[in-house]
């Protein structure tokens, strides 16, 4: 049986309003499905601007319930229609005043599999996220989808190796890292950290970043979305740093076993000696 899956990532620019932004992403689902993609992940807070450039409670309105809100329902129907697994990075409202930076995962039959809530919340100029989000508290879930075991690690999370490892230990085969990150700040890390995480944890990583400069600030989101394999090799080209782009790539999941048979990182790690890492 073939172990190759066709996976997709979508980077795009803020259109100016929520509804057209959702429509752009619905079209991306159709475009990806037209090429036989079996799984697709969007960028962080996909249907909004990156509002964390400012601290304005008006943007709380972008939050909605997961999975009972309208956007998840809308994309569940689309996932079912096209038989595609979807990872939807969204703004979640658990109850009024309790908000998270979350990704919902929908299986290829449209069923809701669960959500991951971003653990690490930055608070620096241009990224005022503590104003909007509580830190994630839902652990390190892995979603057993039709195409494989999927983990999600959102944006700023990527700077912390511990979460990558937790997802690996839980059995992730692909970890998606939806992001919104700015050229001046992180460009030197963008092609370093996720490939390093893929190599260290021996799984595939899909890294997505939005594009363009939005009205709310000066952040220059530089796209360059990509897949990287367990040997830290890019799968195909890295996407444009300025234009919207759908990245569709074939990933051979057999590579996980091949690399893990070569390097026994999971066997040789020493959790008994890592106590200081979890000391408060």
């Amino acid at each position, binding site marked *: 049986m073939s172990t190759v899956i066709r996976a997709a990532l979508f980077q795009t620019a803020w259109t100016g309003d929520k509804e057209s932004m959702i429509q752009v992403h619905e079209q991306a689902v159709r*475009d990806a499905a037209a*090429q036989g993609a079996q799984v697709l992940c969007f960028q962080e807070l996909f249907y909004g601007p990156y509002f964390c450039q400012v601290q304005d409670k008006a943007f709380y309105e972008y939050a909605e319930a997961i999975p009972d809100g309208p956007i998840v329902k809308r994309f569940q129907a689309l996932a079912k229609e096209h038989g595609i697994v979807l990872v939807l990075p969204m703004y979640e409202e658990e109850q009024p005043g309790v908000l998270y930076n979350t990704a919902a995962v929908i299986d290829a039959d449209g069923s809701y599999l669960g959500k991951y809530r971003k653990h690490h919340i930055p608070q620096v100029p241009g990224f005022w996220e503590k104003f909007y989000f509580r830190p994630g508290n839902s652990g390190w879930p892995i979603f057993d989808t039709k195409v494989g075991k999927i983990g999600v690690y959102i944006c700023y999370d990527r700077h912390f190796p511990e979460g990558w490892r937790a997802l690996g230990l839980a059995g992730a085969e692909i970890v998606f890292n939806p992001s919104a990150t700015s050229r001046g700040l992180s*460009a030197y890390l963008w092609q370093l950290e996720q490939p390093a995480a893929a190599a260290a944890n021996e799984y595939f990583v899909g890294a997505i970043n939005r594009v363009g400069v939005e009205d709310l600030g000066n952040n220059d989101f530089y796209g360059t979305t990509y897949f990287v394999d367990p040997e830290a090799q890019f799968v195909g080209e890295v996407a444009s740093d300025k234009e919207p782009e759908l990245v569709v790539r074939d990933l051979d999941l057999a590579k996980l076993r091949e690399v893990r048979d070569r390097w026994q990182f999971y066997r040789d790690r020493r959790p008994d000696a890592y106590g200081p890492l979890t000391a408060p």
Partner: protein
Amino acid sequence: MTTSLGTPRTLDALEPALSVRQVLGLERVLAGEPEVVAGASQLDRLVRWVHVAEAADVGVMLTGGEMVLTTGVLLAGDEAAQAEYIQSLHRAEASAVVLGLGRAFPAPPDVMRRAAERCGLPMVVLHRPFPFAELTEEVQSRLVQRKFAAVSLSEAVRTALTGLITGGAPLQSLLDEVAAHSACPVVVTNLAHRVLATAGERSAVDDVLRDWERISRQAGGSEGDGWIRAELGGRGERWGQIMLCGYRGDTATGRLLADRAAEALVLHRMLGGSAHTWEEQSAQSLMTDLASGVVPARQLLPRARAAGLPVNRRTFVPMVVRDGDTAQLDRVLRLLGLPGLVAELADGVTAVLLSLPRDQDADALAAHFASRLRTESGALKAVVAAAGQRTVWDDVPAGLREAQHVADAVADSSDALELPAVVRLKDVHLRGLIRLLRDDPQVQSFAERELDGLLCAADEDLLAVLRTYLATGRNKSRTAQLHHVSRPALYRRLEAIEGRLGVDLDDFEQAASVHIALLAHDAQQG
């Protein structure tokens, strides 16, 4: 035991220098019978200058990188001073100390030797009396020569490149100049590691490109010795790299060349010497070579691969879009996630080459592309001409020519024709045939004979009406609509046409004859 300082002291890469080892190997120095008595592992340190000093506190006079020559006359008999002397040289980051044996020290002094070994400072003794002036003269003149050579090379390269830029030379000329100096392949890439341009000996460049997929996919980007990179960027934005691939000279010179080249390329790009981006120029050069057939397709494989086009086990769909905007076409490809190349082949003629995995429905995706192009560009009539899909790379040039032929065949009447979103050879019928025969003298004279009445007193309006009328299958209301005229006005024009040509357009054979003549006429003009 030798204590190591770690890596050899490195001076500014552009600063000319000899290593301690090189200095000791000079013929005139060998005459002094030099012997390394400490710090033997540090002989690759660079010597920036040679300094003769007898002062005990010589360290305060140094700025680093000096080889200090001494007879030790002020140190004899004072072991504490000897140890401190070595320490002060070490603190000042001197490259080495050379002690002339003789009156002060008949043999290498142990205290100094041990101190030098501990701090990893190369210590050399000269067994034969040797005039220091000869050594300084020899080394200084060589250092000055090297410095002059570096400055001279830097200036020569900069002058040549600046001259090319101010003369409006294309990117390729700049790279050819750099390659002439570096004598190795030179590659320019964008941030996606796509090769935008190359220079150097063709076979060597092809060797590099053949392995490009592996090289470019190394996230860390280390390729070993002789690979010298310089970043391209400006105004706080990085947009690519220039690489000397397998440079065989010394690293400092290679670095100098790469830096001068990078400066020139940034300047060239900022001055905007061309209406096209480097990505566009690169794709254009590849696609033009491919379509022309001048270079066998097989030889273009490394370039295609390096330009980011997947070529293994793929289905290729050669397409041509008339009056398409290259940037717009590229945007649509990206939006759909379709791998492909876009390039302007001629004025208003843009080629799009899709490269799809073999399990995909190539026709459906070509149609998907055409329909999205219409939506995105707002040009509801954008005509996408496609050749049949090719599964062998060698067949791609013929496919591009077929697509161009189809695009040309419908170019004049695309409004009047009911064309599918993707036009193929089977859709162009007679137009396609006439297009192929357009250079035949008999066809040319036939066209002139048939259309003489309209061509002798050229009336573009009547010719246009005739073209639409025939293209719509003699549909009068559609023709009137397309020309924004009333039906009576159209009738008057048709009568005028019939009068000038001396034909009855209601007669099928006469109308067909005029139609063929007009197609031939248009094909000759196109």
